[in-house]
Protein backbone atom coordinates (compact mmCIF):
# COMPACT_ATOMS: atom_id res chain seq x y z
CA UNK A 1 0.00 0.00 0.00
CA UNK A 2 1.25 3.44 -0.97
CA UNK A 3 -0.60 6.58 -0.06
CA UNK A 4 -0.44 10.30 -0.60
CA UNK A 5 -2.10 13.12 1.29
CA UNK A 6 -2.94 16.32 -0.54
CA UNK A 7 -1.71 18.82 2.03
CA UNK A 8 -3.39 21.66 0.14
CA UNK A 9 -6.73 19.97 0.81
CA UNK A 10 -5.86 18.96 4.38
CA UNK A 11 -7.46 21.26 6.96
CA UNK A 12 -6.22 19.49 10.07
CA UNK A 13 -9.54 17.88 10.98
CA UNK A 14 -7.43 15.21 12.65
CA UNK A 15 -9.72 12.31 11.79
CA UNK A 16 -6.87 10.31 10.20
CA UNK A 17 -4.73 10.76 13.31
CA UNK A 18 -7.59 9.29 15.34
CA UNK A 19 -8.18 6.40 12.93
CA UNK A 20 -4.53 5.45 12.44
CA UNK A 21 -2.33 7.16 15.05
CA UNK A 22 0.71 5.04 14.18
CA UNK A 23 0.60 6.32 10.59
CA UNK A 24 -0.58 9.95 10.85
CA UNK A 25 0.49 12.70 13.25
CA UNK A 26 0.73 16.47 13.47
CA UNK A 27 4.13 18.02 14.02
CA UNK A 28 4.80 21.04 16.25
CA UNK A 29 3.92 23.39 13.39
CA UNK A 30 0.51 21.71 12.96
CA UNK A 31 1.55 20.12 9.67
CA UNK A 32 0.32 16.60 9.00
CA UNK A 33 3.05 13.99 8.74
CA UNK A 34 2.46 10.41 7.63
CA UNK A 35 4.11 7.19 6.52
CA UNK A 36 3.53 6.94 2.76
CA UNK A 37 4.10 3.19 2.81
CA UNK A 38 2.46 1.93 6.00
CA UNK A 39 3.10 -1.67 7.13
CA UNK A 40 0.45 -4.25 6.37
CA UNK A 41 -0.67 -4.33 10.00
CA UNK A 42 -1.87 -0.74 9.53
CA UNK A 43 -3.72 -1.14 6.24
CA UNK A 44 -7.22 -1.51 7.74
CA UNK A 45 -6.68 1.55 9.90
CA UNK A 46 -5.43 3.53 6.90
CA UNK A 47 -8.55 2.58 4.95
CA UNK A 48 -10.62 3.77 7.92
CA UNK A 49 -8.65 7.03 7.82
CA UNK A 50 -9.44 7.44 4.11
CA UNK A 51 -13.16 7.03 4.89
CA UNK A 52 -12.95 9.39 7.89
CA UNK A 53 -11.27 12.30 6.09
CA UNK A 54 -13.93 14.99 5.60
CA UNK A 55 -12.08 16.60 2.69
CA UNK A 56 -10.97 13.34 1.02
CA UNK A 57 -7.35 14.38 1.06
CA UNK A 58 -5.93 10.85 1.45
CA UNK A 59 -5.38 8.81 -1.69
CA UNK A 60 -4.35 5.18 -1.85
CA UNK A 61 -2.19 4.73 -4.91
CA UNK A 62 -3.23 1.77 -7.03
CA UNK A 63 -6.46 1.10 -5.12
CA UNK A 64 -9.89 2.34 -6.08
Amino acid sequence: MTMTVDLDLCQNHGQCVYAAPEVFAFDEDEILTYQPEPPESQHDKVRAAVAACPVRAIRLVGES
Partner: protein
Amino acid sequence: MSPLRRIVVVGASLAGLRAAEALRRSGYAGELVLVGDEPHLPYDRPPLTKQFLNDGWRPEQTALPVAPGLDATWRLGVPVTRLDVSAHAVHLADGARLHYDGAVLATGARARPWPGPTTPTGVHTIRGLDDAIQVAKALPHAGRLLIVGAGFLGGEVAAAARALGVPATLVESQDWPLLAPAGPHVGRFVAALHRAHGVDLRLGVRVRDFTGNARGELTGAELTDGTNVEADLAVLALGAKPNIEWLAGSGLITDGGLVCDEYCRPLWDDGRPAPDVVAAGDLARWPHPLAGNELISLGHWSNAVEQATAAAQTLLQPDTTPGYRPVPSFWSDLYGVRMRSVGLPHLADVSAVIEHDDSKHRLVVTYHRNGQLIGALTANRTSRLAPFRAEFQRHLSGTHPSALPA
Protein backbone atom coordinates in the same frame (compact mmCIF):
# COMPACT_ATOMS: atom_id res chain seq x y z
CA MET B 1 -24.77 -14.69 3.55
CA SER B 2 -27.76 -12.67 4.59
CA PRO B 3 -31.48 -13.47 4.50
CA LEU B 4 -32.28 -9.80 3.88
CA ARG B 5 -33.57 -9.20 0.37
CA ARG B 6 -34.45 -5.53 0.55
CA ILE B 7 -33.00 -2.84 2.77
CA VAL B 8 -34.58 0.61 2.73
CA VAL B 9 -32.41 3.50 3.89
CA VAL B 10 -34.61 6.43 4.90
CA GLY B 11 -32.55 9.58 4.54
CA ALA B 12 -30.17 10.27 1.67
CA SER B 13 -27.61 12.48 3.34
CA LEU B 14 -24.22 11.61 4.85
CA ALA B 15 -25.45 8.98 7.35
CA GLY B 16 -27.78 7.28 4.87
CA LEU B 17 -25.15 7.14 2.16
CA ARG B 18 -22.43 5.84 4.45
CA ALA B 19 -24.81 3.22 5.89
CA ALA B 20 -25.62 2.05 2.37
CA GLU B 21 -21.93 1.84 1.50
CA ALA B 22 -21.18 -0.06 4.71
CA LEU B 23 -23.93 -2.58 3.88
CA ARG B 24 -22.37 -3.26 0.48
CA ARG B 25 -18.86 -3.41 1.93
CA SER B 26 -20.09 -6.03 4.37
CA GLY B 27 -21.30 -8.17 1.50
CA TYR B 28 -25.00 -7.31 1.39
CA ALA B 29 -26.08 -8.21 -2.16
CA GLY B 30 -29.83 -7.63 -1.98
CA GLU B 31 -31.91 -4.70 -3.13
CA LEU B 32 -30.94 -1.33 -1.66
CA VAL B 33 -33.33 1.64 -1.75
CA LEU B 34 -32.37 5.14 -0.58
CA VAL B 35 -35.20 7.57 0.14
CA GLY B 36 -34.56 11.31 0.49
CA ASP B 37 -36.92 14.27 0.86
CA GLU B 38 -34.56 16.62 -0.98
CA PRO B 39 -34.25 16.37 -4.77
CA HIS B 40 -30.45 16.24 -4.54
CA LEU B 41 -28.12 13.29 -4.45
CA PRO B 42 -26.20 13.19 -1.14
CA TYR B 43 -24.15 16.31 -0.52
CA ASP B 44 -21.78 17.49 2.15
CA ARG B 45 -23.05 20.12 4.60
CA PRO B 46 -19.88 21.57 6.19
CA PRO B 47 -18.85 23.47 3.02
CA LEU B 48 -22.26 25.20 2.87
CA THR B 49 -21.21 27.79 5.46
CA LYS B 50 -17.62 27.98 4.22
CA GLN B 51 -16.47 27.42 0.62
CA PHE B 52 -20.01 27.66 -0.73
CA LEU B 53 -20.39 31.23 0.59
CA ASN B 54 -16.81 32.39 0.11
CA ASP B 55 -15.15 30.50 -2.71
CA GLY B 56 -17.88 30.44 -5.32
CA TRP B 57 -18.44 26.70 -5.07
CA ARG B 58 -21.13 25.37 -7.38
CA PRO B 59 -23.77 23.04 -5.91
CA GLU B 60 -22.21 20.00 -7.61
CA GLN B 61 -18.94 20.64 -5.77
CA THR B 62 -20.69 19.75 -2.51
CA ALA B 63 -21.72 16.32 -3.82
CA LEU B 64 -20.59 13.39 -1.72
CA PRO B 65 -18.86 10.73 -3.79
CA VAL B 66 -20.98 7.62 -4.15
CA ALA B 67 -18.94 4.42 -3.96
CA PRO B 68 -18.81 2.55 -7.27
CA GLY B 69 -20.91 -0.58 -7.09
CA LEU B 70 -23.43 0.85 -4.62
CA ASP B 71 -26.16 -0.33 -6.99
CA ALA B 72 -28.94 1.51 -5.19
CA THR B 73 -32.41 2.63 -6.21
CA TRP B 74 -32.84 6.31 -5.37
CA ARG B 75 -36.22 7.74 -4.36
CA LEU B 76 -35.35 11.43 -4.13
CA GLY B 77 -37.59 14.43 -3.55
CA VAL B 78 -40.12 12.27 -1.69
CA PRO B 79 -40.65 12.80 2.04
CA VAL B 80 -41.33 9.74 4.16
CA THR B 81 -44.61 9.85 6.06
CA ARG B 82 -44.85 6.74 8.23
CA LEU B 83 -43.03 3.70 9.54
CA ASP B 84 -44.94 0.49 10.19
CA VAL B 85 -42.52 -1.71 12.11
CA SER B 86 -44.78 -4.75 12.45
CA ALA B 87 -45.68 -4.73 8.73
CA HIS B 88 -42.02 -3.95 7.80
CA ALA B 89 -43.09 -1.04 5.61
CA VAL B 90 -42.17 2.59 4.99
CA HIS B 91 -44.84 4.89 3.57
CA LEU B 92 -43.88 7.81 1.31
CA ALA B 93 -45.64 11.10 0.59
CA ASP B 94 -46.34 10.07 -3.00
CA GLY B 95 -48.44 7.17 -1.75
CA ALA B 96 -45.80 4.50 -2.26
CA ARG B 97 -45.44 1.77 0.36
CA LEU B 98 -41.98 0.20 0.49
CA HIS B 99 -41.71 -3.18 2.10
CA TYR B 100 -38.35 -3.82 3.81
CA ASP B 101 -36.54 -6.74 5.36
CA GLY B 102 -34.22 -4.27 7.06
CA ALA B 103 -34.43 -0.48 7.42
CA VAL B 104 -31.92 2.24 8.30
CA LEU B 105 -33.54 5.37 9.73
CA ALA B 106 -31.36 8.37 8.95
CA THR B 107 -33.70 11.32 8.41
CA GLY B 108 -31.36 13.69 10.23
CA ALA B 109 -32.41 17.07 11.54
CA ARG B 110 -33.61 20.37 10.15
CA ALA B 111 -32.95 23.98 11.00
CA ARG B 112 -35.00 25.26 13.92
CA PRO B 113 -37.36 27.78 12.35
CA TRP B 114 -38.21 31.28 13.52
CA PRO B 115 -40.80 30.88 16.29
CA GLY B 116 -42.91 33.82 15.11
CA PRO B 117 -45.75 33.53 12.61
CA THR B 118 -44.03 35.01 9.56
CA THR B 119 -40.73 36.52 8.50
CA PRO B 120 -40.05 39.12 5.83
CA THR B 121 -38.38 38.11 2.54
CA GLY B 122 -34.66 37.87 3.09
CA VAL B 123 -34.71 35.75 6.25
CA HIS B 124 -33.12 32.34 5.66
CA THR B 125 -32.00 29.23 7.43
CA ILE B 126 -28.82 27.56 6.20
CA ARG B 127 -28.93 23.83 6.74
CA GLY B 128 -29.76 22.52 3.29
CA LEU B 129 -28.25 23.10 -0.14
CA ASP B 130 -31.31 25.03 -1.35
CA ASP B 131 -31.01 27.39 1.65
CA ALA B 132 -27.31 27.87 1.00
CA ILE B 133 -27.91 28.65 -2.69
CA GLN B 134 -30.25 31.49 -1.65
CA VAL B 135 -27.83 32.88 0.94
CA ALA B 136 -24.81 32.58 -1.36
CA LYS B 137 -26.68 34.50 -4.07
CA ALA B 138 -27.74 37.32 -1.76
CA LEU B 139 -24.73 37.64 0.53
CA PRO B 140 -22.22 39.46 -1.72
CA HIS B 141 -24.80 42.21 -2.41
CA ALA B 142 -26.12 42.54 1.13
CA GLY B 143 -25.94 45.94 2.82
CA ARG B 144 -25.80 44.25 6.21
CA LEU B 145 -26.25 40.66 7.29
CA LEU B 146 -27.98 39.83 10.56
CA ILE B 147 -27.19 36.41 12.01
CA VAL B 148 -29.42 35.13 14.81
CA GLY B 149 -27.50 32.69 16.99
CA ALA B 150 -23.73 32.65 17.52
CA GLY B 151 -23.23 28.89 17.58
CA PHE B 152 -20.85 27.14 15.22
CA LEU B 153 -23.06 27.64 12.18
CA GLY B 154 -23.91 31.26 12.93
CA GLY B 155 -20.28 32.05 13.64
CA GLU B 156 -19.16 30.55 10.36
CA VAL B 157 -21.76 32.56 8.44
CA ALA B 158 -20.58 35.75 10.15
CA ALA B 159 -16.99 34.91 9.20
CA ALA B 160 -18.05 34.23 5.61
CA ALA B 161 -19.77 37.63 5.44
CA ARG B 162 -16.72 39.43 6.77
CA ALA B 163 -14.47 37.63 4.28
CA LEU B 164 -16.64 39.18 1.56
CA GLY B 165 -16.49 42.59 3.24
CA VAL B 166 -20.20 42.49 4.11
CA PRO B 167 -21.10 44.22 7.41
CA ALA B 168 -22.48 41.69 9.88
CA THR B 169 -24.41 41.83 13.14
CA LEU B 170 -24.39 38.66 15.20
CA VAL B 171 -27.04 38.37 17.92
CA GLU B 172 -26.72 35.79 20.67
CA SER B 173 -29.08 35.31 23.60
CA GLN B 174 -26.37 33.84 25.87
CA ASP B 175 -23.56 35.87 27.44
CA TRP B 176 -20.96 34.37 25.10
CA PRO B 177 -20.92 32.70 21.70
CA LEU B 178 -20.76 28.88 21.92
CA LEU B 179 -21.45 29.00 25.66
CA ALA B 180 -23.56 25.84 25.74
CA PRO B 181 -21.41 23.66 23.45
CA ALA B 182 -17.96 24.92 24.49
CA GLY B 183 -18.10 26.99 27.67
CA PRO B 184 -17.03 30.54 28.64
CA HIS B 185 -13.28 30.33 27.82
CA VAL B 186 -13.98 29.42 24.22
CA GLY B 187 -16.83 31.93 24.26
CA ARG B 188 -14.54 34.83 25.16
CA PHE B 189 -11.91 33.66 22.65
CA VAL B 190 -14.46 33.47 19.84
CA ALA B 191 -16.12 36.77 20.81
CA ALA B 192 -12.71 38.45 20.50
CA LEU B 193 -12.20 36.85 17.08
CA HIS B 194 -15.56 38.12 15.81
CA ARG B 195 -14.93 41.62 17.09
CA ALA B 196 -11.38 41.70 15.69
CA HIS B 197 -12.93 40.98 12.29
CA GLY B 198 -15.43 43.81 12.58
CA VAL B 199 -18.54 41.87 13.54
CA ASP B 200 -21.11 43.84 15.51
CA LEU B 201 -21.57 41.21 18.22
CA ARG B 202 -24.61 41.62 20.48
CA LEU B 203 -24.53 39.29 23.46
CA GLY B 204 -27.24 38.56 26.01
CA VAL B 205 -30.02 39.84 23.76
CA ARG B 206 -32.59 38.26 21.49
CA VAL B 207 -34.33 39.29 18.32
CA ARG B 208 -37.84 40.32 19.38
CA ASP B 209 -39.08 40.51 15.81
CA PHE B 210 -38.00 41.27 12.28
CA THR B 211 -39.05 44.44 10.51
CA GLY B 212 -40.00 44.74 6.86
CA ASN B 213 -40.98 47.37 4.32
CA ALA B 214 -44.26 47.66 2.44
CA ARG B 215 -43.06 45.09 -0.09
CA GLY B 216 -42.47 42.60 2.70
CA GLU B 217 -38.69 42.78 2.38
CA LEU B 218 -36.47 42.62 5.43
CA THR B 219 -35.28 45.96 6.79
CA GLY B 220 -33.92 44.84 10.14
CA ALA B 221 -34.87 43.62 13.58
CA GLU B 222 -35.87 44.86 17.01
CA LEU B 223 -33.82 43.42 19.83
CA THR B 224 -34.98 42.73 23.37
CA ASP B 225 -32.70 45.47 24.76
CA GLY B 226 -34.76 48.02 22.82
CA THR B 227 -32.18 48.63 20.10
CA ASN B 228 -32.76 48.16 16.39
CA VAL B 229 -30.50 46.52 13.84
CA GLU B 230 -30.66 47.39 10.16
CA ALA B 231 -30.25 44.44 7.82
CA ASP B 232 -31.43 43.43 4.37
CA LEU B 233 -30.40 39.80 4.76
CA ALA B 234 -30.73 37.54 7.80
CA VAL B 235 -29.67 34.00 8.60
CA LEU B 236 -31.29 32.06 11.41
CA ALA B 237 -28.81 29.81 13.18
CA LEU B 238 -30.99 28.65 16.06
CA GLY B 239 -29.89 25.03 16.15
CA ALA B 240 -31.48 21.89 14.74
CA LYS B 241 -34.56 19.77 15.38
CA PRO B 242 -34.50 16.03 14.72
CA ASN B 243 -36.76 14.83 11.91
CA ILE B 244 -38.80 12.39 13.97
CA GLU B 245 -42.38 13.54 13.43
CA TRP B 246 -42.90 10.87 10.75
CA LEU B 247 -42.20 8.22 13.41
CA ALA B 248 -45.22 9.25 15.51
CA GLY B 249 -47.50 6.25 15.79
CA SER B 250 -44.69 3.81 15.01
CA GLY B 251 -44.48 2.74 18.66
CA LEU B 252 -40.82 3.81 18.81
CA ILE B 253 -39.72 6.23 21.51
CA THR B 254 -39.17 9.72 20.14
CA ASP B 255 -38.02 12.03 22.90
CA GLY B 256 -35.81 14.81 21.60
CA GLY B 257 -34.62 12.28 19.02
CA LEU B 258 -35.16 8.65 18.16
CA VAL B 259 -34.16 6.78 21.31
CA CYS B 260 -31.88 3.82 20.56
CA ASP B 261 -29.81 1.29 22.47
CA GLU B 262 -26.03 1.22 22.08
CA TYR B 263 -26.37 -1.04 19.05
CA CYS B 264 -28.20 1.68 17.08
CA ARG B 265 -31.53 -0.14 17.50
CA PRO B 266 -34.58 2.07 18.11
CA LEU B 267 -36.56 1.12 21.20
CA TRP B 268 -40.24 0.38 21.64
CA ASP B 269 -42.23 2.12 24.33
CA ASP B 270 -41.56 -0.84 26.63
CA GLY B 271 -37.80 -0.53 26.19
CA ARG B 272 -37.28 -3.53 23.89
CA PRO B 273 -35.39 -2.97 20.62
CA ALA B 274 -37.57 -2.93 17.51
CA PRO B 275 -36.82 -5.71 15.01
CA ASP B 276 -34.95 -5.21 11.73
CA VAL B 277 -34.60 -1.44 12.15
CA VAL B 278 -31.50 0.61 12.96
CA ALA B 279 -30.86 4.35 13.16
CA ALA B 280 -27.89 6.61 12.53
CA GLY B 281 -26.96 10.26 12.44
CA ASP B 282 -28.54 13.44 13.74
CA LEU B 283 -31.93 11.96 14.62
CA ALA B 284 -30.59 9.26 16.97
CA ARG B 285 -30.20 9.43 20.76
CA TRP B 286 -28.40 6.63 22.53
CA PRO B 287 -26.62 5.92 25.82
CA HIS B 288 -22.92 6.76 25.81
CA PRO B 289 -20.50 5.54 28.52
CA LEU B 290 -18.56 8.81 28.41
CA ALA B 291 -21.80 10.51 29.45
CA GLY B 292 -22.43 7.98 32.23
CA ASN B 293 -24.76 6.18 29.80
CA GLU B 294 -27.07 9.15 29.55
CA LEU B 295 -28.74 9.50 26.17
CA ILE B 296 -26.84 11.81 23.85
CA SER B 297 -27.29 12.90 20.27
CA LEU B 298 -24.48 14.31 18.17
CA GLY B 299 -25.13 16.42 15.10
CA HIS B 300 -21.57 16.02 13.93
CA TRP B 301 -20.15 14.92 10.59
CA SER B 302 -17.95 12.22 12.08
CA ASN B 303 -20.83 10.79 14.10
CA ALA B 304 -22.96 10.42 10.99
CA VAL B 305 -20.14 8.48 9.35
CA GLU B 306 -19.28 6.23 12.29
CA GLN B 307 -22.80 5.56 13.50
CA ALA B 308 -23.89 4.66 9.97
CA THR B 309 -21.19 2.00 9.83
CA ALA B 310 -22.16 0.66 13.25
CA ALA B 311 -25.85 0.60 12.36
CA ALA B 312 -25.17 -1.31 9.15
CA GLN B 313 -23.22 -3.89 11.10
CA THR B 314 -26.07 -4.35 13.59
CA LEU B 315 -28.46 -4.96 10.73
CA LEU B 316 -26.25 -7.54 8.99
CA GLN B 317 -24.33 -9.15 11.87
CA PRO B 318 -26.34 -8.61 15.04
CA ASP B 319 -24.47 -11.34 16.91
CA THR B 320 -21.00 -9.85 16.48
CA THR B 321 -21.71 -6.13 16.59
CA PRO B 322 -19.50 -4.49 19.24
CA GLY B 323 -21.79 -1.67 20.33
CA TYR B 324 -21.42 1.93 19.28
CA ARG B 325 -19.18 3.83 21.70
CA PRO B 326 -17.28 6.39 19.63
CA VAL B 327 -14.99 9.13 20.84
CA PRO B 328 -17.03 12.10 19.59
CA SER B 329 -15.23 14.76 17.59
CA PHE B 330 -16.22 17.91 15.77
CA TRP B 331 -14.65 20.95 14.19
CA SER B 332 -15.38 24.48 13.10
CA ASP B 333 -13.31 27.02 11.18
CA LEU B 334 -13.55 30.72 12.04
CA TYR B 335 -11.48 33.35 10.23
CA GLY B 336 -8.88 30.72 9.43
CA VAL B 337 -8.69 29.59 13.08
CA ARG B 338 -9.15 25.84 13.28
CA MET B 339 -11.26 24.76 16.22
CA ARG B 340 -11.20 21.03 16.90
CA SER B 341 -12.77 19.03 19.69
CA VAL B 342 -12.91 15.52 21.10
CA GLY B 343 -15.19 14.13 23.77
CA LEU B 344 -18.33 15.79 25.06
CA PRO B 345 -17.48 19.38 26.07
CA HIS B 346 -21.16 20.34 26.20
CA LEU B 347 -21.70 18.04 29.20
CA ALA B 348 -18.93 19.57 31.31
CA ASP B 349 -19.58 21.30 34.62
CA VAL B 350 -16.16 22.97 34.60
CA SER B 351 -13.51 23.78 32.00
CA ALA B 352 -9.84 24.71 32.32
CA VAL B 353 -7.51 26.68 30.02
CA ILE B 354 -4.29 24.76 29.35
CA GLU B 355 -2.88 27.14 26.75
CA HIS B 356 -4.03 30.52 25.47
CA ASP B 357 -2.01 32.58 23.01
CA ASP B 358 -3.94 35.45 21.46
CA SER B 359 -1.17 36.40 19.04
CA LYS B 360 -1.22 32.97 17.42
CA HIS B 361 -4.93 32.41 18.09
CA ARG B 362 -4.08 29.27 19.98
CA LEU B 363 -6.26 27.77 22.66
CA VAL B 364 -6.35 24.47 24.51
CA VAL B 365 -9.25 23.89 26.89
CA THR B 366 -10.13 20.74 28.84
CA TYR B 367 -13.62 19.88 30.07
CA HIS B 368 -14.49 18.02 33.24
CA ARG B 369 -17.60 16.54 34.76
CA ASN B 370 -17.77 15.33 38.35
CA GLY B 371 -13.99 15.70 38.43
CA GLN B 372 -13.46 13.49 35.36
CA LEU B 373 -12.06 14.57 32.01
CA ILE B 374 -14.92 14.53 29.50
CA GLY B 375 -13.70 16.64 26.58
CA ALA B 376 -11.02 18.85 25.04
CA LEU B 377 -11.11 21.65 22.51
CA THR B 378 -8.24 23.31 20.70
CA ALA B 379 -7.86 26.27 18.39
CA ASN B 380 -4.90 26.07 15.97
CA ARG B 381 -3.53 23.30 18.17
CA THR B 382 -4.92 20.10 16.66
CA SER B 383 -1.60 18.46 17.50
CA ARG B 384 -2.56 18.64 21.18
CA LEU B 385 -5.78 16.65 20.81
CA ALA B 386 -4.43 13.15 20.11
CA PRO B 387 -3.48 12.35 23.74
CA PHE B 388 -6.94 13.37 24.96
CA ARG B 389 -8.54 11.28 22.28
CA ALA B 390 -6.37 8.31 23.24
CA GLU B 391 -7.41 8.68 26.87
CA PHE B 392 -11.10 8.62 25.96
CA GLN B 393 -10.47 5.59 23.78
CA ARG B 394 -8.81 3.79 26.69
CA HIS B 395 -11.69 4.70 28.98
CA LEU B 396 -14.24 3.42 26.45
CA SER B 397 -12.42 0.17 25.73
CA GLY B 398 -12.50 -0.50 29.48
CA THR B 399 -16.28 -0.28 29.48
CA HIS B 400 -17.89 -3.38 28.10
CA PRO B 401 -21.33 -3.28 26.59
CA SER B 402 -23.89 -5.61 27.97
CA ALA B 403 -24.64 -8.74 25.97
CA LEU B 404 -26.84 -7.98 23.00
CA PRO B 405 -30.38 -8.39 24.29
CA ALA B 406 -32.89 -9.94 21.92
